[in-house]
């Protein structure tokens, strides 16, 4: 197991390095040299920035400076707004994003898993069809449509929850519902499929042949095995959470990291875009690493092989 963790950790470091490199050069590929400072930039700001990023130096030198800064945890700062650093943006934006995102994943996955389980155990019954319909609807409705819809229904028409903003507990409900919606569909569908598969496995029959009750078979034998393939999907899911749910944050005007990215895009704040992209990629690469290790903990076959 230790060897496996070490191996995965090494490959994660390589991934991080490559991500940073690729992002850097891609950003400098943007036509019209977006990093060139506008003409009316005050002299003092220009000097500061040029010194910090070496913007007047050759590309490769800029790259080494950039990488060195990364190593020191400096992901850069805004070229449009003075004093805004990428790390600062992320630290202030993270709590609301994480709350909405993780809340959405947790609520969504729990409801989704329960529904998927019920559907699989009711294979071809009424509940099963209901869950299938829900799951397909869930992947067929873009989240901004769903979000706008519940915003109008619960916020505007019924006035149950505030429409937009981030000022208290009640502001969390609608965004979380939106974030949960896609997850419900996704997990219900995944678990249903994998559970139906496990149901046909010989070991399920072995369990039955021991005289276990249906509940015991589901609880002790089927659930764990059918959740295994889902663990891998947790990586992208969590990565998606931390990189901010762009759409949800935009609809409900939540000051999260997704919103930060969107406003950076809209104001063509390229240093900010680059910094955020690198941070988001780092976060997701780390999430993948964590999930892989978790997978090793859950599945004894990997534990030994690694």
């Amino acid at each position: 197991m230790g060897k496996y963790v070490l191996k995965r950790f090494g490959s994660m470091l390589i991934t991080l390095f490559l991500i940073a490199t690729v992002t850097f050069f891609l950003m400098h590929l943007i036509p019209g040299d977006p990093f060139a400072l506008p003409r009316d930039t005050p002299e003092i700001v220009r000097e500061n920035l040029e010194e910090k990023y070496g913007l007047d130096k050759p590309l490769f030198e800029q790259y080494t400076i950039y990488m060195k800064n990364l190593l020191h945890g400096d992901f850069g700062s805004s070229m449009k707004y003075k004093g805004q650093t990428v790390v600062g943006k992320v630290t202030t934006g993270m709590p609301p994003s994480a709350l909405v995102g993780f809340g959405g994943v947790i609520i969504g996955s729990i409801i989704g898993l329960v529904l998927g389980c019920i559907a699989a155990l009711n294979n071809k019954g009424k509940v099963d069809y209901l869950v299938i319909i829900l799951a397909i609807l869930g992947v067929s409705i873009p989240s901004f449509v769903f979000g706008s819809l519940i915003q109008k229904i619960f916020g505007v028409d019924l006035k149950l929850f505030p429409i937009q903003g981030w000022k208290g507990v009640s502001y969390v409900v609608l965004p979380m519902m939106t974030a949960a919606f896609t997850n419900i569909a996704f997990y219900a569908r995944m678990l249903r499929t994998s559970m139906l598969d496990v149901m046909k496995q010989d070991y399920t029959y072995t369990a039955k042949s021991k005289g276990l009750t249906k509940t015991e078979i589901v609880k002790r034998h089927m659930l764990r095995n059918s959740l295994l393939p889902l663990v891998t999907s947790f990586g992208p899911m969590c990565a998606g959470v931390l990189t901010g749910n762009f759409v949800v944050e935009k609809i409900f005007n939540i000051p999260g990291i997704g919103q930060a990215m969107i406003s950076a895009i809209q104001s063509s704040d390229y240093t900010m875009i680059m910094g955020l992209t690198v941070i988001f990629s780092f976060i997701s690469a780390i999430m993948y690493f964590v999930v892989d290790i978790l997978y090793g903990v859950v599945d004894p076959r990997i534990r030994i092989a690694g």
Partner: protein
Amino acid sequence: MTEEIKQTSDDIRTLPLEFFEKDEQAYEDADKITRPSVTYWSDAWRRFKANKIAMISSIILILIAVLAIVVPLISRYTYDQTDLMAVNQAPSSAHLFGTDDLGRDIFVRCWEGARVSLFIALVVSILNGTIGILYGGIAGYFGGLADNIMMRFCELIASIPQMLWVILLILILKPGVGPVIIAIAATGWIGMARLFRGQVFQIKEMEFVMASRTMGAGSIWIILKHLFPNALSPIITNMAFAIPSAIFAESFLSYIGLGLPLPTASWGVLASDGANKLLSYPYQLLFPALLICITMLCFNLLGDGLRDALDPRMRQ
């Protein structure tokens, strides 16, 4: 052992002797195959036809495609024709889906948008398929170090959320139909490459392929005769599912402000415009959103139907 197989026992006892004559002719036929052989495709088609939901989905999709082609041709409005005298009108007989804030007819814009969105989705799906098959095929065919490096590369790309890639690429390429296609396809092919590589590996190990190799079959023959028929079902299913996710990605880009430039209409552009005006003019979101949902739903159901129909394990 007292019971007997149930049958009309009187009949049996009174059977005349000639029934007990040897039936030589019958045995001659023994080695003929008792069940008519059904080809893979006719069998898959039969199963697909039996799947009512998938059939209805494909009919709706054909209908949408026909409307997308026809409506912009015969309508009295064009998609970019503004009319400041008729701004933000609710649906009426003059404007079936109403008009937007520039007085453009939303009905025409929806079908023009269908052209653009479906075009993007189809091209993305085909690109994903082609690149994925080539990449995965090469990796799978050569195996070893080449495969290792190629798959590491895929892993690297996949370790960054797809939407970040798309955003980065759009920033570089500037918004437009071509760039949107490239940006979405740039990461979309990975799923197909992994899938096809898996198929190649699997097929390389299969006994019937080894058998055919020992009989002197060349690589091309094996690819045409064994690999494609076996891998086709996951490929088609994967391509069918790529279409809704491309539609999804396009509308996401429009929504965060990286969509197609004005005055192009796409479903994403229409829906994100509509979403911004939801509170005052809900119908402006309703129609494009409905079209997106129906199309996505149909493609998803069609994908499910294709997967069930093409899976050889479903043959009985």
